[in-house]
Protein backbone atom coordinates (compact mmCIF):
# COMPACT_ATOMS: atom_id res chain seq x y z
CA UNK A 1 0.00 0.00 0.00
CA UNK A 2 2.56 2.55 1.02
CA UNK A 3 4.46 4.32 -1.66
CA UNK A 4 8.16 4.55 -1.64
CA UNK A 5 9.47 8.04 -1.69
CA UNK A 6 10.65 10.81 0.49
CA UNK A 7 8.80 11.43 3.71
CA UNK A 8 6.26 14.25 3.75
CA UNK A 9 7.08 14.97 7.32
CA UNK A 10 10.01 13.75 9.31
CA UNK A 11 11.34 14.52 12.74
CA UNK A 12 14.83 13.68 13.96
CA UNK A 13 15.86 13.43 17.58
CA UNK A 14 13.02 15.54 18.85
CA UNK A 15 13.38 16.41 22.52
CA UNK A 16 10.86 18.40 24.48
CA UNK A 17 11.24 19.66 28.01
CA UNK A 18 8.46 21.09 30.12
CA UNK A 19 10.52 22.72 32.84
CA UNK A 20 12.49 19.86 34.32
CA UNK A 21 10.23 17.19 32.85
CA UNK A 22 11.51 15.43 29.76
CA UNK A 23 8.37 14.71 27.77
CA UNK A 24 10.17 13.55 24.64
CA UNK A 25 13.69 12.25 24.52
CA UNK A 26 15.25 11.92 21.10
CA UNK A 27 12.26 10.75 19.09
CA UNK A 28 12.59 10.24 15.35
CA UNK A 29 9.87 9.28 12.91
CA UNK A 30 8.70 9.87 9.36
CA UNK A 31 5.52 9.62 7.30
CA UNK A 32 5.18 9.19 3.55
CA UNK A 33 2.14 9.84 1.44
CA UNK A 34 -0.24 6.93 1.11
CA UNK A 35 0.99 5.55 4.39
CA UNK A 36 -0.63 5.11 7.77
CA UNK A 37 1.86 5.57 10.55
CA UNK A 38 0.51 4.43 13.88
CA UNK A 39 1.82 6.15 16.94
CA UNK A 40 1.35 3.84 19.87
CA UNK A 41 1.99 4.16 23.52
CA UNK A 42 0.41 4.10 26.91
CA UNK A 43 -0.82 7.26 28.57
CA UNK A 44 2.12 9.46 29.46
CA UNK A 45 4.30 7.95 26.77
CA UNK A 46 4.60 11.28 25.00
CA UNK A 47 2.15 10.74 22.15
CA UNK A 48 0.30 13.97 22.81
CA UNK A 49 3.47 16.00 23.12
CA UNK A 50 4.81 14.57 19.89
CA UNK A 51 1.70 15.29 17.84
CA UNK A 52 1.28 18.71 19.36
CA UNK A 53 4.84 19.41 18.28
CA UNK A 54 4.04 18.15 14.79
CA UNK A 55 0.87 20.26 14.74
CA UNK A 56 2.64 23.46 15.75
CA UNK A 57 1.07 23.72 19.20
CA UNK A 58 4.41 23.10 20.92
CA UNK A 59 7.89 23.84 19.69
CA UNK A 60 10.55 21.21 20.18
CA UNK A 61 13.37 21.99 22.60
CA UNK A 62 15.90 20.14 20.48
CA UNK A 63 15.86 18.24 17.24
CA UNK A 64 14.83 18.88 13.66
CA UNK A 65 11.51 18.93 11.87
CA UNK A 66 11.28 18.56 8.09
CA UNK A 67 8.28 19.01 5.82
CA UNK A 68 8.91 17.66 2.32
CA UNK A 69 12.63 17.85 2.94
CA UNK A 70 12.63 21.46 4.15
CA UNK A 71 13.37 22.21 7.77
CA UNK A 72 10.51 24.08 9.40
CA UNK A 73 9.71 25.90 12.63
CA UNK A 74 6.05 26.27 13.40
CA UNK A 75 4.88 29.02 15.72
CA UNK A 76 1.21 28.13 15.66
CA UNK A 77 -1.23 25.47 14.49
CA UNK A 78 -2.03 27.82 11.62
CA UNK A 79 1.56 27.48 10.36
CA UNK A 80 1.27 23.72 10.34
CA UNK A 81 -2.08 23.94 8.58
CA UNK A 82 -0.55 26.14 5.91
CA UNK A 83 2.01 23.41 5.30
CA UNK A 84 -0.80 20.90 4.80
CA UNK A 85 -0.59 19.32 8.22
CA UNK A 86 -4.08 19.00 9.65
CA UNK A 87 -4.83 17.69 13.09
CA UNK A 88 -8.15 16.21 14.15
CA UNK A 89 -8.49 16.17 17.90
CA UNK A 90 -10.55 13.53 19.56
CA UNK A 91 -13.19 15.60 21.30
CA UNK A 92 -12.57 19.03 19.85
CA UNK A 93 -13.44 18.25 16.30
CA UNK A 94 -17.01 19.44 15.94
CA UNK A 95 -19.58 21.83 17.34
CA UNK A 96 -22.66 19.71 18.00
CA UNK A 97 -25.37 22.34 17.60
CA UNK A 98 -24.04 23.71 14.33
CA UNK A 99 -25.00 22.18 11.02
CA UNK A 100 -22.70 19.79 9.20
CA UNK A 101 -21.92 22.23 6.42
CA UNK A 102 -21.31 25.10 8.86
CA UNK A 103 -18.95 22.92 10.84
CA UNK A 104 -17.28 21.76 7.68
CA UNK A 105 -16.42 25.31 6.63
CA UNK A 106 -15.94 26.89 10.06
CA UNK A 107 -12.96 29.21 9.87
CA UNK A 108 -12.72 28.96 6.07
CA UNK A 109 -16.20 29.97 4.97
CA UNK A 110 -16.91 30.23 1.26
CA UNK A 111 -18.26 33.66 0.37
CA UNK A 112 -19.95 35.25 -2.57
CA UNK A 113 -20.57 38.88 -3.36
CA UNK A 114 -18.26 41.66 -2.24
CA UNK A 115 -17.96 44.56 0.15
CA UNK A 116 -20.95 45.03 2.42
CA UNK A 117 -22.81 42.25 0.62
CA UNK A 118 -20.12 39.63 0.98
CA UNK A 119 -21.94 36.67 2.36
CA UNK A 120 -21.60 33.09 3.42
CA UNK A 121 -22.38 30.91 0.42
CA UNK A 122 -24.73 28.48 2.12
CA UNK A 123 -25.65 26.55 -1.01
CA UNK A 124 -22.05 26.00 -1.97
CA UNK A 125 -21.22 24.92 1.57
CA UNK A 126 -24.11 22.46 1.64
CA UNK A 127 -23.24 21.04 -1.75
CA UNK A 128 -19.55 20.59 -1.01
CA UNK A 129 -20.09 19.14 2.45
CA UNK A 130 -22.51 16.62 1.01
CA UNK A 131 -20.18 15.73 -1.86
CA UNK A 132 -17.08 15.41 0.31
CA UNK A 133 -18.89 13.20 2.78
CA UNK A 134 -20.15 11.08 -0.09
CA UNK A 135 -16.52 10.58 -1.14
CA UNK A 136 -15.92 9.08 2.28
CA UNK A 137 -18.91 6.83 1.81
CA UNK A 138 -21.33 8.69 4.08
CA UNK A 139 -24.58 9.80 2.56
CA UNK A 140 -25.82 12.97 4.18
CA UNK A 141 -29.29 13.81 3.01
CA UNK A 142 -29.44 17.13 4.78
CA UNK A 143 -26.14 18.95 5.35
CA UNK A 144 -28.00 21.58 7.39
CA UNK A 145 -28.79 19.11 10.14
CA UNK A 146 -26.84 19.62 13.38
CA UNK A 147 -23.65 17.62 13.73
CA UNK A 148 -25.08 16.42 17.04
CA UNK A 149 -27.39 14.14 15.11
CA UNK A 150 -24.42 12.24 13.73
CA UNK A 151 -22.79 9.35 15.52
CA UNK A 152 -19.38 9.82 17.10
CA UNK A 153 -17.62 8.02 14.28
CA UNK A 154 -19.37 10.09 11.65
CA UNK A 155 -18.41 13.30 13.45
CA UNK A 156 -14.77 12.28 13.30
CA UNK A 157 -15.16 11.58 9.62
CA UNK A 158 -16.66 15.02 8.98
CA UNK A 159 -13.48 16.40 10.53
CA UNK A 160 -11.35 14.12 8.39
CA UNK A 161 -13.27 15.02 5.22
CA UNK A 162 -12.86 18.69 6.07
CA UNK A 163 -9.11 18.35 6.51
CA UNK A 164 -8.81 16.50 3.21
CA UNK A 165 -10.94 19.06 1.38
CA UNK A 166 -8.80 21.93 2.65
CA UNK A 167 -5.71 20.40 1.14
CA UNK A 168 -4.17 18.44 3.97
CA UNK A 169 -1.20 16.34 2.92
CA UNK A 170 -0.79 14.84 6.33
CA UNK A 171 -3.60 14.00 8.70
CA UNK A 172 -2.83 13.72 12.37
CA UNK A 173 -5.62 11.89 14.13
CA UNK A 174 -5.47 12.13 17.88
CA UNK A 175 -7.10 9.00 19.27
CA UNK A 176 -10.06 9.18 16.92
CA UNK A 177 -11.32 5.80 18.06
CA UNK A 178 -10.79 6.13 21.80
CA UNK A 179 -14.26 7.33 22.76
CA UNK A 180 -16.08 5.15 20.29
CA UNK A 181 -17.76 1.78 20.42
CA UNK A 182 -16.37 -1.10 18.40
CA UNK A 183 -18.70 -0.56 15.46
CA UNK A 184 -18.14 3.17 15.28
CA UNK A 185 -14.41 2.72 15.65
CA UNK A 186 -14.66 0.49 12.59
CA UNK A 187 -16.30 3.36 10.72
CA UNK A 188 -13.40 5.65 11.53
CA UNK A 189 -10.81 3.02 10.61
CA UNK A 190 -12.48 2.76 7.22
CA UNK A 191 -12.05 6.50 6.69
CA UNK A 192 -8.43 6.28 7.65
CA UNK A 193 -8.01 3.68 4.93
CA UNK A 194 -9.93 6.01 2.58
CA UNK A 195 -7.58 8.87 3.33
CA UNK A 196 -4.60 6.63 2.62
CA UNK A 197 -6.17 5.56 -0.66
CA UNK A 198 -6.35 9.24 -1.56
CA UNK A 199 -2.60 9.41 -1.05
CA UNK A 200 -2.49 11.29 2.23
CA UNK A 201 -0.01 10.55 4.91
CA UNK A 202 -1.80 9.63 8.11
CA UNK A 203 -0.46 9.69 11.64
CA UNK A 204 -2.89 7.66 13.68
CA UNK A 205 -2.50 7.96 17.42
CA UNK A 206 -4.02 5.22 19.48
CA UNK A 207 -3.35 3.02 22.42
CA UNK A 208 -5.43 0.27 21.00
CA UNK A 209 -3.12 -2.15 19.17
CA UNK A 210 -6.04 -3.76 17.35
CA UNK A 211 -7.15 -0.54 15.77
CA UNK A 212 -3.56 0.16 14.87
CA UNK A 213 -2.93 -3.26 13.40
CA UNK A 214 -6.10 -3.08 11.31
CA UNK A 215 -5.04 -0.06 9.25
CA UNK A 216 -1.40 0.66 10.03
CA UNK A 217 1.47 0.26 7.60
CA UNK A 218 4.11 1.27 10.08
CA UNK A 219 4.19 1.47 13.82
CA UNK A 220 6.15 3.78 16.04
CA UNK A 221 5.99 2.84 19.67
CA UNK A 222 6.61 5.38 22.37
CA UNK A 223 7.29 4.65 25.97
CA UNK A 224 8.23 7.19 28.60
CA UNK A 225 9.24 9.77 26.04
CA UNK A 226 11.48 7.43 24.07
CA UNK A 227 10.82 5.48 20.93
CA UNK A 228 11.42 1.81 20.39
CA UNK A 229 11.77 2.62 16.73
CA UNK A 230 9.51 2.26 13.74
CA UNK A 231 8.41 -1.18 12.55
CA UNK A 232 6.58 -2.46 9.54
CA UNK A 233 3.74 -4.89 9.89
CA UNK A 234 6.03 -7.82 8.96
CA UNK A 235 8.54 -6.96 11.62
CA UNK A 236 6.14 -6.72 14.48
CA UNK A 237 3.44 -9.08 15.65
CA UNK A 238 0.51 -7.75 17.54
CA UNK A 239 1.67 -9.54 20.64
CA UNK A 240 5.09 -7.96 20.51
CA UNK A 241 3.49 -4.61 19.95
CA UNK A 242 1.40 -4.96 23.06
CA UNK A 243 4.38 -6.12 25.10
CA UNK A 244 6.40 -3.14 24.01
CA UNK A 245 3.62 -0.77 24.86
CA UNK A 246 2.77 -1.93 28.30
CA UNK A 247 5.45 -4.25 29.65
CA UNK A 248 5.18 -7.84 30.82
CA UNK A 249 4.36 -7.23 34.49
CA UNK A 250 1.10 -5.53 33.78
CA UNK A 251 0.16 -8.25 31.35
CA UNK A 252 0.68 -10.94 33.98
CA UNK A 253 -1.50 -9.04 36.35
CA UNK A 254 -4.23 -9.08 33.76
CA UNK A 255 -3.91 -12.73 32.92
CA UNK A 256 -6.55 -13.91 35.37
CA UNK A 257 -9.14 -12.14 33.28
CA UNK A 258 -8.42 -14.41 30.33
CA UNK A 259 -11.56 -16.47 30.32
CA UNK A 260 -13.95 -13.59 30.70
CA UNK A 261 -13.29 -12.15 27.33
CA UNK A 262 -14.09 -14.82 24.84
CA UNK A 263 -16.70 -12.56 23.32
CA UNK A 264 -13.92 -10.32 22.05
CA UNK A 265 -13.77 -12.61 19.04
CA UNK A 266 -17.30 -11.73 17.99
CA UNK A 267 -16.69 -8.06 18.47
CA UNK A 268 -13.53 -7.92 16.49
CA UNK A 269 -14.39 -10.56 13.94
CA UNK A 270 -10.77 -11.24 13.12
CA UNK A 271 -10.29 -14.97 12.86
CA UNK A 272 -6.54 -14.95 13.08
CA UNK A 273 -6.31 -13.84 16.67
CA UNK A 274 -4.80 -16.23 19.15
CA UNK A 275 -6.39 -16.81 22.51
CA UNK A 276 -3.80 -14.66 24.21
CA UNK A 277 -4.54 -11.90 21.77
CA UNK A 278 -8.21 -11.95 22.66
CA UNK A 279 -7.42 -11.61 26.29
CA UNK A 280 -4.97 -8.82 25.69
CA UNK A 281 -7.34 -6.98 23.42
CA UNK A 282 -10.16 -7.13 25.84
CA UNK A 283 -8.06 -6.33 28.85
CA UNK A 284 -6.50 -3.41 27.13
CA UNK A 285 -9.82 -2.11 25.98
CA UNK A 286 -11.19 -2.29 29.45
CA UNK A 287 -8.15 -0.63 30.91
CA UNK A 288 -8.35 1.95 28.18
CA UNK A 289 -11.91 2.88 28.92
CA UNK A 290 -11.06 3.19 32.61
CA UNK A 291 -8.14 5.40 31.77
CA UNK A 292 -10.21 7.45 29.40
CA UNK A 293 -12.76 8.13 32.03
CA UNK A 294 -10.05 9.36 34.38
CA UNK A 295 -8.03 11.18 31.81
CA UNK A 296 -8.27 14.94 31.73
CA UNK A 297 -7.43 16.38 28.35
Amino acid at each position, binding site marked *: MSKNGNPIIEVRNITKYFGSVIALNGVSMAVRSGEVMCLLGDNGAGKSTLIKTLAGVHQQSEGEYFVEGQEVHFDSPRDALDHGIATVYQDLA*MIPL*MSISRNFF*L*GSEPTKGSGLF*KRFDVKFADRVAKAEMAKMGID*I*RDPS*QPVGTLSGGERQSVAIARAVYFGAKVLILDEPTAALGVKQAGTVLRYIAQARARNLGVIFITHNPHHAYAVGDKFTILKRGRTFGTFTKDELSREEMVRMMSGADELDALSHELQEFEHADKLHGEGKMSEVDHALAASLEEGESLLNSKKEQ
Partner: protein
Amino acid sequence: MATTTVTQEGDERLVEASLLKRLLSRPELGAAAGAILVWLIFAIVAPTGFLSLRGTASYLEVSAQLGILAVAVSLLMIAGEFDLSIGSLVGFAGATTAILASQYGVPLYLGAIVALVLSLAVGFLNGYMVIKTKLPSFIITLGSLFIIRGLTIGTTRLITGRTQIGGLDDYAGYDFMRVIFASDIPIAGVGFSISIFWWLLLGGIATWVLLRTQIGNWIFGSGGAPQAARQVGVPVDKVKTGLFMTTAFAAWLLATIQVITVKSADTLRGEQQEFFAIIAVVIGGTLLTGGYGSAIGAVLGALIFGMVKQGLVFAGVDADWFYVFMGAMLVIAVLVNNYIRRRAEAARK
Protein backbone atom coordinates in the same frame (compact mmCIF):
# COMPACT_ATOMS: atom_id res chain seq x y z
CA MET B 1 -30.10 11.55 9.04
CA ALA B 2 -26.93 10.24 7.58
CA THR B 3 -26.43 6.60 7.00
CA THR B 4 -23.47 4.67 5.77
CA THR B 5 -25.59 2.52 3.54
CA VAL B 6 -26.76 4.67 0.70
CA THR B 7 -30.37 4.59 -0.34
CA GLN B 8 -31.55 7.35 -2.62
CA GLU B 9 -35.20 6.37 -2.86
CA GLY B 10 -37.78 8.61 -1.27
CA ASP B 11 -35.68 11.75 -1.53
CA GLU B 12 -38.61 13.66 -3.04
CA ARG B 13 -40.71 12.99 0.00
CA LEU B 14 -37.83 13.95 2.25
CA VAL B 15 -37.79 17.50 0.95
CA GLU B 16 -41.20 18.23 2.42
CA ALA B 17 -40.55 16.37 5.61
CA SER B 18 -37.25 18.11 6.21
CA LEU B 19 -38.83 21.51 5.55
CA LEU B 20 -41.28 20.91 8.37
CA LYS B 21 -38.54 19.43 10.50
CA ARG B 22 -36.30 22.39 9.81
CA LEU B 23 -39.06 24.76 10.83
CA LEU B 24 -39.62 22.80 14.03
CA SER B 25 -35.94 22.88 14.84
CA ARG B 26 -35.63 26.66 14.49
CA PRO B 27 -34.75 28.23 17.85
CA GLU B 28 -37.30 31.03 17.52
CA LEU B 29 -40.27 28.71 16.99
CA GLY B 30 -41.29 28.79 20.65
CA ALA B 31 -41.13 32.59 20.75
CA ALA B 32 -43.22 32.88 17.57
CA ALA B 33 -45.88 30.63 19.05
CA GLY B 34 -45.68 32.55 22.33
CA ALA B 35 -46.07 35.90 20.58
CA ILE B 36 -49.18 34.72 18.73
CA LEU B 37 -50.62 33.31 21.94
CA VAL B 38 -50.00 36.52 23.90
CA TRP B 39 -51.46 38.61 21.09
CA LEU B 40 -54.59 36.43 21.01
CA ILE B 41 -55.03 36.60 24.78
CA PHE B 42 -54.97 40.41 24.84
CA ALA B 43 -57.00 40.62 21.64
CA ILE B 44 -59.74 38.77 23.52
CA VAL B 45 -59.30 40.31 26.96
CA ALA B 46 -58.76 43.94 25.95
CA PRO B 47 -59.78 44.28 22.29
CA THR B 48 -60.61 47.99 22.27
CA GLY B 49 -57.25 49.28 23.44
CA PHE B 50 -54.96 46.49 22.36
CA LEU B 51 -56.21 46.03 18.82
CA SER B 52 -56.36 49.73 17.98
CA LEU B 53 -53.58 51.22 15.89
CA ARG B 54 -52.72 53.52 18.75
CA GLY B 55 -52.46 50.55 21.10
CA THR B 56 -50.31 48.69 18.60
CA ALA B 57 -48.00 51.67 18.23
CA SER B 58 -47.67 51.89 22.00
CA TYR B 59 -46.74 48.25 22.62
CA LEU B 60 -44.44 48.22 19.62
CA GLU B 61 -42.56 51.21 21.04
CA VAL B 62 -42.13 49.45 24.39
CA SER B 63 -41.00 46.34 22.53
CA ALA B 64 -38.59 48.35 20.41
CA GLN B 65 -36.84 49.92 23.39
CA LEU B 66 -36.08 46.53 24.85
CA GLY B 67 -35.65 44.89 21.46
CA ILE B 68 -32.76 47.15 20.46
CA LEU B 69 -30.84 45.81 23.46
CA ALA B 70 -32.09 42.25 23.09
CA VAL B 71 -30.96 41.87 19.48
CA ALA B 72 -27.38 42.80 20.38
CA VAL B 73 -27.50 40.68 23.52
CA SER B 74 -28.68 37.68 21.51
CA LEU B 75 -25.56 37.81 19.34
CA LEU B 76 -23.34 38.03 22.41
CA MET B 77 -25.15 35.19 24.15
CA ILE B 78 -24.90 32.97 21.08
CA ALA B 79 -21.17 33.63 21.29
CA GLY B 80 -21.36 32.33 24.84
CA GLU B 81 -21.08 35.52 26.90
CA PHE B 82 -23.27 37.79 29.04
CA ASP B 83 -23.31 41.53 29.30
CA LEU B 84 -24.95 42.77 32.48
CA SER B 85 -23.52 46.25 32.11
CA ILE B 86 -25.78 47.45 29.28
CA GLY B 87 -28.47 48.84 31.60
CA SER B 88 -25.87 51.00 33.32
CA LEU B 89 -24.44 51.95 29.95
CA VAL B 90 -27.84 53.31 28.92
CA GLY B 91 -27.71 55.68 31.89
CA PHE B 92 -24.06 56.48 31.23
CA ALA B 93 -24.42 57.26 27.52
CA GLY B 94 -27.50 59.42 28.07
CA ALA B 95 -25.91 61.36 30.92
CA THR B 96 -22.73 61.91 28.90
CA THR B 97 -24.61 63.41 25.98
CA ALA B 98 -26.72 65.59 28.28
CA ILE B 99 -23.79 66.83 30.40
CA LEU B 100 -21.76 67.75 27.34
CA ALA B 101 -24.71 69.70 25.94
CA SER B 102 -25.87 71.40 29.14
CA GLN B 103 -22.53 72.12 30.83
CA TYR B 104 -20.11 72.55 27.95
CA GLY B 105 -22.33 73.71 25.11
CA VAL B 106 -21.43 70.81 22.90
CA PRO B 107 -24.07 70.27 20.21
CA LEU B 108 -26.18 67.21 20.97
CA TYR B 109 -25.02 65.23 17.96
CA LEU B 110 -21.38 65.77 18.88
CA GLY B 111 -22.14 64.86 22.47
CA ALA B 112 -23.83 61.71 21.25
CA ILE B 113 -20.78 60.80 19.19
CA VAL B 114 -18.53 61.27 22.23
CA ALA B 115 -20.94 59.11 24.23
CA LEU B 116 -20.80 56.47 21.48
CA VAL B 117 -17.01 56.38 21.51
CA LEU B 118 -16.95 56.08 25.30
CA SER B 119 -19.62 53.36 25.24
CA LEU B 120 -17.69 51.37 22.66
CA ALA B 121 -14.60 51.76 24.82
CA VAL B 122 -16.50 50.32 27.78
CA GLY B 123 -17.67 47.43 25.58
CA PHE B 124 -14.12 46.83 24.45
CA LEU B 125 -12.91 46.90 28.04
CA ASN B 126 -15.57 44.38 29.06
CA GLY B 127 -14.43 42.05 26.29
CA TYR B 128 -10.76 42.61 27.04
CA MET B 129 -11.23 41.84 30.72
CA VAL B 130 -13.27 38.71 30.02
CA ILE B 131 -10.64 37.39 27.64
CA LYS B 132 -7.57 38.36 29.67
CA THR B 133 -8.83 37.25 33.06
CA LYS B 134 -10.71 34.21 31.72
CA LEU B 135 -13.33 34.94 34.38
CA PRO B 136 -16.97 34.38 33.47
CA SER B 137 -18.40 37.41 31.69
CA PHE B 138 -21.24 37.27 34.21
CA ILE B 139 -18.78 38.34 36.93
CA ILE B 140 -16.86 40.88 34.89
CA THR B 141 -19.95 42.66 33.60
CA LEU B 142 -21.70 42.43 36.96
CA GLY B 143 -18.72 44.45 38.15
CA SER B 144 -19.08 46.92 35.31
CA LEU B 145 -22.81 47.17 36.00
CA PHE B 146 -22.08 48.74 39.39
CA ILE B 147 -18.93 50.60 38.42
CA ILE B 148 -20.57 52.33 35.46
CA ARG B 149 -23.77 53.12 37.34
CA GLY B 150 -21.82 54.52 40.27
CA LEU B 151 -19.51 56.53 38.03
CA THR B 152 -22.47 57.95 36.14
CA ILE B 153 -24.34 59.04 39.24
CA GLY B 154 -21.23 60.30 41.01
CA THR B 155 -19.84 62.24 38.07
CA THR B 156 -23.18 63.73 37.10
CA ARG B 157 -23.84 64.93 40.65
CA LEU B 158 -20.31 66.30 40.89
CA ILE B 159 -20.66 68.32 37.70
CA THR B 160 -24.32 69.35 37.76
CA GLY B 161 -25.26 68.89 41.41
CA ARG B 162 -28.21 66.74 40.34
CA THR B 163 -28.81 63.31 38.86
CA GLN B 164 -31.20 64.44 36.17
CA ILE B 165 -30.61 66.85 33.34
CA GLY B 166 -33.65 68.24 31.58
CA GLY B 167 -34.64 70.69 28.89
CA LEU B 168 -32.42 69.17 26.25
CA ASP B 169 -34.59 70.56 23.46
CA ASP B 170 -33.12 73.99 24.18
CA TYR B 171 -29.65 72.92 23.10
CA ALA B 172 -28.00 73.00 19.72
CA GLY B 173 -28.64 70.11 17.38
CA TYR B 174 -31.83 68.91 19.06
CA ASP B 175 -34.07 69.16 16.00
CA PHE B 176 -31.63 67.21 13.88
CA MET B 177 -31.30 64.49 16.53
CA ARG B 178 -35.08 64.34 16.93
CA VAL B 179 -35.56 63.41 13.28
CA ILE B 180 -33.20 60.47 13.53
CA PHE B 181 -33.92 59.20 17.01
CA ALA B 182 -37.28 60.41 18.22
CA SER B 183 -39.61 61.21 15.35
CA ASP B 184 -42.94 59.51 14.71
CA ILE B 185 -43.67 57.93 11.39
CA PRO B 186 -47.37 58.24 10.54
CA ILE B 187 -49.08 55.07 9.40
CA ALA B 188 -52.84 55.36 8.79
CA GLY B 189 -52.94 58.53 10.85
CA VAL B 190 -51.17 57.11 13.87
CA GLY B 191 -47.59 57.98 14.71
CA PHE B 192 -45.29 54.98 15.07
CA SER B 193 -42.09 55.73 16.94
CA ILE B 194 -38.96 55.61 14.81
CA SER B 195 -37.43 53.38 17.48
CA ILE B 196 -39.62 50.58 16.11
CA PHE B 197 -37.79 50.88 12.81
CA TRP B 198 -34.42 50.95 14.52
CA TRP B 199 -35.41 47.77 16.34
CA LEU B 200 -36.52 45.97 13.18
CA LEU B 201 -33.50 47.24 11.25
CA LEU B 202 -31.10 45.94 13.90
CA GLY B 203 -33.00 42.64 14.06
CA GLY B 204 -32.76 42.28 10.30
CA ILE B 205 -29.06 43.09 10.18
CA ALA B 206 -28.29 40.77 13.09
CA THR B 207 -30.22 37.92 11.48
CA TRP B 208 -28.46 38.44 8.19
CA VAL B 209 -25.05 38.55 9.85
CA LEU B 210 -25.81 35.46 11.89
CA LEU B 211 -27.17 33.29 9.11
CA ARG B 212 -25.53 34.58 5.98
CA THR B 213 -22.06 35.84 6.78
CA GLN B 214 -18.73 34.41 7.80
CA ILE B 215 -18.83 36.34 11.05
CA GLY B 216 -22.19 34.74 11.83
CA ASN B 217 -20.62 31.32 11.53
CA TRP B 218 -17.81 32.48 13.80
CA ILE B 219 -20.33 33.71 16.38
CA PHE B 220 -21.99 30.31 16.53
CA GLY B 221 -18.61 28.60 16.64
CA SER B 222 -17.24 30.86 19.37
CA GLY B 223 -20.18 30.04 21.60
CA GLY B 224 -20.64 26.41 20.66
CA ALA B 225 -17.09 25.21 21.25
CA PRO B 226 -14.48 27.96 21.50
CA GLN B 227 -11.58 25.54 21.58
CA ALA B 228 -12.71 23.73 18.43
CA ALA B 229 -13.37 27.05 16.72
CA ARG B 230 -9.86 28.30 17.57
CA GLN B 231 -8.45 25.05 16.25
CA VAL B 232 -9.78 25.81 12.78
CA GLY B 233 -8.67 29.43 12.82
CA VAL B 234 -11.69 31.35 14.11
CA PRO B 235 -10.53 34.52 15.93
CA VAL B 236 -12.73 33.77 18.95
CA ASP B 237 -11.38 36.57 21.14
CA LYS B 238 -11.92 39.20 18.47
CA VAL B 239 -15.43 37.94 17.78
CA LYS B 240 -16.35 38.17 21.45
CA THR B 241 -14.78 41.58 21.95
CA GLY B 242 -16.61 42.83 18.87
CA LEU B 243 -19.89 41.59 20.29
CA PHE B 244 -19.32 43.27 23.65
CA MET B 245 -18.88 46.45 21.64
CA THR B 246 -22.08 45.66 19.76
CA THR B 247 -24.08 45.43 22.99
CA ALA B 248 -22.47 48.70 24.09
CA PHE B 249 -23.54 50.24 20.79
CA ALA B 250 -27.12 49.04 21.36
CA ALA B 251 -27.09 50.55 24.85
CA TRP B 252 -25.90 53.86 23.41
CA LEU B 253 -28.57 53.79 20.68
CA LEU B 254 -31.32 53.17 23.24
CA ALA B 255 -29.89 55.88 25.50
CA THR B 256 -29.87 58.39 22.66
CA ILE B 257 -33.42 57.51 21.62
CA GLN B 258 -34.63 57.93 25.20
CA VAL B 259 -32.73 61.13 25.89
CA ILE B 260 -33.99 62.78 22.72
CA THR B 261 -37.55 61.46 23.13
CA VAL B 262 -38.07 62.64 26.70
CA LYS B 263 -35.68 65.61 26.35
CA SER B 264 -33.88 64.72 29.53
CA ALA B 265 -31.25 62.36 30.88
CA ASP B 266 -31.56 60.45 34.13
CA THR B 267 -28.58 58.64 35.62
CA LEU B 268 -30.86 55.82 36.75
CA ARG B 269 -32.15 55.13 33.26
CA GLY B 270 -31.78 51.60 31.93
CA GLU B 271 -31.96 49.95 35.33
CA GLN B 272 -32.89 46.28 35.10
CA GLN B 273 -32.87 46.45 31.31
CA GLU B 274 -29.94 44.01 31.23
CA PHE B 275 -32.14 41.38 32.85
CA PHE B 276 -35.16 42.05 30.67
CA ALA B 277 -32.91 41.85 27.62
CA ILE B 278 -31.62 38.44 28.73
CA ILE B 279 -35.18 37.29 29.36
CA ALA B 280 -36.25 38.40 25.87
CA VAL B 281 -33.26 36.63 24.33
CA VAL B 282 -33.89 33.41 26.25
CA ILE B 283 -37.60 33.48 25.38
CA GLY B 284 -36.40 33.88 21.81
CA GLY B 285 -34.76 30.47 21.98
CA THR B 286 -31.12 31.32 22.61
CA LEU B 287 -29.31 28.96 24.94
CA LEU B 288 -27.66 30.40 28.04
CA THR B 289 -24.65 28.22 27.28
CA GLY B 290 -24.15 29.74 23.83
CA GLY B 291 -23.73 28.23 20.41
CA TYR B 292 -27.40 28.20 19.57
CA GLY B 293 -29.99 30.90 19.16
CA SER B 294 -31.51 33.52 16.95
CA ALA B 295 -31.78 37.28 16.58
CA ILE B 296 -35.34 36.95 15.25
CA GLY B 297 -36.07 35.14 18.49
CA ALA B 298 -34.80 38.15 20.42
CA VAL B 299 -37.04 40.43 18.34
CA LEU B 300 -40.01 38.19 19.16
CA GLY B 301 -39.00 37.96 22.82
CA ALA B 302 -39.01 41.76 23.02
CA LEU B 303 -42.35 41.84 21.21
CA ILE B 304 -43.84 39.52 23.85
CA PHE B 305 -42.39 41.77 26.55
CA GLY B 306 -43.98 44.86 25.04
CA MET B 307 -47.34 43.22 24.38
CA VAL B 308 -47.59 41.92 27.93
CA LYS B 309 -46.48 45.17 29.50
CA GLN B 310 -48.93 47.34 27.55
CA GLY B 311 -51.58 44.64 27.30
CA LEU B 312 -51.89 44.47 31.07
CA VAL B 313 -52.46 48.23 31.10
CA PHE B 314 -55.19 47.95 28.45
CA ALA B 315 -56.75 45.08 30.35
CA GLY B 316 -56.77 47.15 33.52
CA VAL B 317 -54.59 44.69 35.40
CA ASP B 318 -52.26 46.02 38.07
CA ALA B 319 -48.74 46.40 36.64
CA ASP B 320 -47.29 44.35 39.51
CA TRP B 321 -48.39 41.19 37.73
CA PHE B 322 -46.10 41.99 34.86
CA TYR B 323 -43.09 40.75 36.80
CA VAL B 324 -44.83 37.50 37.66
CA PHE B 325 -45.59 36.93 34.04
CA MET B 326 -42.08 37.66 32.76
CA GLY B 327 -40.49 35.46 35.40
CA ALA B 328 -42.78 32.57 34.55
CA MET B 329 -42.18 33.05 30.83
CA LEU B 330 -38.44 32.88 31.42
CA VAL B 331 -38.60 29.57 33.25
CA ILE B 332 -40.97 28.04 30.72
CA ALA B 333 -38.77 29.24 27.86
CA VAL B 334 -35.67 27.66 29.37
CA LEU B 335 -37.50 24.37 29.80
CA VAL B 336 -38.61 24.44 26.17
CA ASN B 337 -35.10 25.40 25.05
CA ASN B 338 -33.54 22.52 26.92
CA TYR B 339 -35.97 20.15 25.28
CA ILE B 340 -35.08 21.50 21.84
CA ARG B 341 -31.39 21.26 22.53
CA ARG B 342 -31.62 17.68 23.74
CA ARG B 343 -33.37 16.83 20.51
CA ALA B 344 -30.74 18.57 18.43
CA GLU B 345 -27.84 17.02 20.30
CA ALA B 346 -29.28 13.54 20.55
CA ALA B 347 -27.03 11.09 18.80
CA ARG B 348 -28.57 8.93 16.16
CA LYS B 349 -28.25 5.79 18.24
